[in-house]
């Protein structure tokens, strides 16, 4: 029996060395790892630049990337770009927090109780298909043009994906683990915090990622319709002044910020879910 014990220890070591090898193999391919995703955007930028410079595209419609970069530098130096981005980001954080917390709580309740699900099924079924943009005029009427209406739009937008994924995560808890907890006479609270929620965590994270994506889209939508600050407002204002370059700076900064947010959430997720391999 000692013999097999030692073997199983060795097995652990082998696994470790295998991981180390995988990591070093990754280091060798690091250049390819970074170059591959960059190749397509660089190619597109070069084609775009060349077409603009040769006069195939009118700069008033689509300025060349170098001109846009010029505006980015100017707007960064003046602090205007960051100001609008931070205002939008603040709205996203506020609205998403409200929407996600509500989605999490309702999701847990609905996920745990088929009765509650039946009770709210018609209301959620009716409200869910409404596009967020449709709420904007309604909310402006109710809450005015200030922050409250925008934050509410974002909260509604991020509520649904969080809700649905939390329900899905809770429902997919493996019966086998529930049986173990039953045998060990665990309280309902222990069952929820030690078994059901951890097992739903991967799904909850999916909801959070989709939710924050929608929150970011919702804020721009709300700002396009009615605002005096934020990236959406910046784009609309630049359109009125026919500043195509400023508009595109706004549009692309939305994309880049979204990418960064997603990256941050993925990092947190992989830290928290290191057991989930």
């Amino acid at each position, binding site marked *: *029996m000692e013999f*097999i*014990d030692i073997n*199983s*220890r060795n*097995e*652990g070591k082998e*696994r470790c060395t295998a991981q180390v090898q995988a990591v070093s193999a990754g280091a060798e391919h690091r250049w390819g790892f970074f170059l591959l995703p960059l190749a397509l955007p660089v190619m597109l930028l070069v084609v775009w630049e060349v077409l603009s410079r040769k006069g195939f595209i009118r700069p008033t419609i689509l300025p060349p990337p170098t001109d846009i970069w010029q505006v980015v530098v100017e707007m960064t130096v003046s602090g205007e770009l960051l100001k609008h981005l931070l205002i939008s980001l603040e709205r996203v954080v506020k609205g998403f927090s409200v929407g996600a917390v509500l989605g999490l709580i309702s999701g847990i309740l609905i996920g745990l109780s088929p009765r509650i699900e039946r009770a709210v099924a018609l209301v959620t079924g009716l409200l869910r298909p409404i596009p967020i943009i449709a709420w904007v005029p309604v909310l402006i009427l109710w809450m005015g043009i200030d922050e409250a209406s925008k934050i509410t739009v974002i909260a509604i937008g991020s509520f649904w994906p969080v809700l649905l994924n939390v329900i899905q995560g809770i429902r997919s808890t493996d019966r*086998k*683990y529930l*049986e*173990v907890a*039953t*045998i*060990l*006479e*665990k*309280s309902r609270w*222990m069952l929820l915090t*030690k*078994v059901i929620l*951890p*097992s739903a*965590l991967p799904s909850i994270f999916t909801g959070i990622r989709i939710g924050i994506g929608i929150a970011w889209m919702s804020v721009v939508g709300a700002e396009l319709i009615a605002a005096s600050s934020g990236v959406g407002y910046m784009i609309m204002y630049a359109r009125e002044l026919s500043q195509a370059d400023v508009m595109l700076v706004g549009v692309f900064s939305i994309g880049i910020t979204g990418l960064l947010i997603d990256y941050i959430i993925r990092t947190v997720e992989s830290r928290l879910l*290191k*057991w*989930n*391999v």
Partner: protein
Amino acid sequence: MSSLTQQLLSITGLSKQFAINSETVQALTDINLQVTPGEFISIVGASGCGKSTLLRIIVGLDSQSSGEITLGGQAIHKPGVDRGMVFQEARLLPWLTVRDNIAFGCRSNATNVEKCRLVDEHIALVGLAGFESAYPHQLSGGMQQRASIARALVNRPKVLLLDEPFGALDAFTRINMQQEVLRIWEAEKTTMILVTHDIDEAIYLGDRVVVMSSRPGTIKKIVPVTLSRPRDRSDYDFVQIRKEIYAEFFEQSPKPFAYAI
């Protein structure tokens, strides 16, 4: 029966019917079994004979249609920490480390100090010292099953139920784990009921081997194994008992096929 007072676990007239597609299936019929404290019972039977159902009823996950089970004189109706269970899959919570998984087995009213002491003791007992902070996916199947046994034993249950615990392990690990369970049983003196389809395993471990037949699931025979431990699987008496149990399953065949390790 004066000996009845000494019984730890007593199963009398137990039957279980399932309804599958509005058809009644008789899973267990008239099971009677008395288990004395500290005894090791092996239950052996073909798949579908209801042996796992029997364990699930004892542990309280399923309920019987008729009959009674008492543990220490108390009738059993629901799960409780006086009974521990190990399943074929280790069923460790993937998000908890080995230590936290075993601590999850502790009674809810145990103090933290008590918990830590119990957990450390049981990590050592199952030979997992040094792997406390590993996650289940980092362990081999045999080690996962060790952690699962520690989790089930950490409350010091009156009876430990093992539902084909080594069925998913390879042959070498299985024999190793059988020796481990025997060592733990001797150290802890916990009453154990093991369900298996491996006749050798049943004889190697059990004080008595309960032979179950299928459709309807019922006890066909109880074979006492009085050999001293550790048992030698090639010992003459061991082979005789194996033949006897074999005959229960393959009685119609004129000459049971040769069986050797």
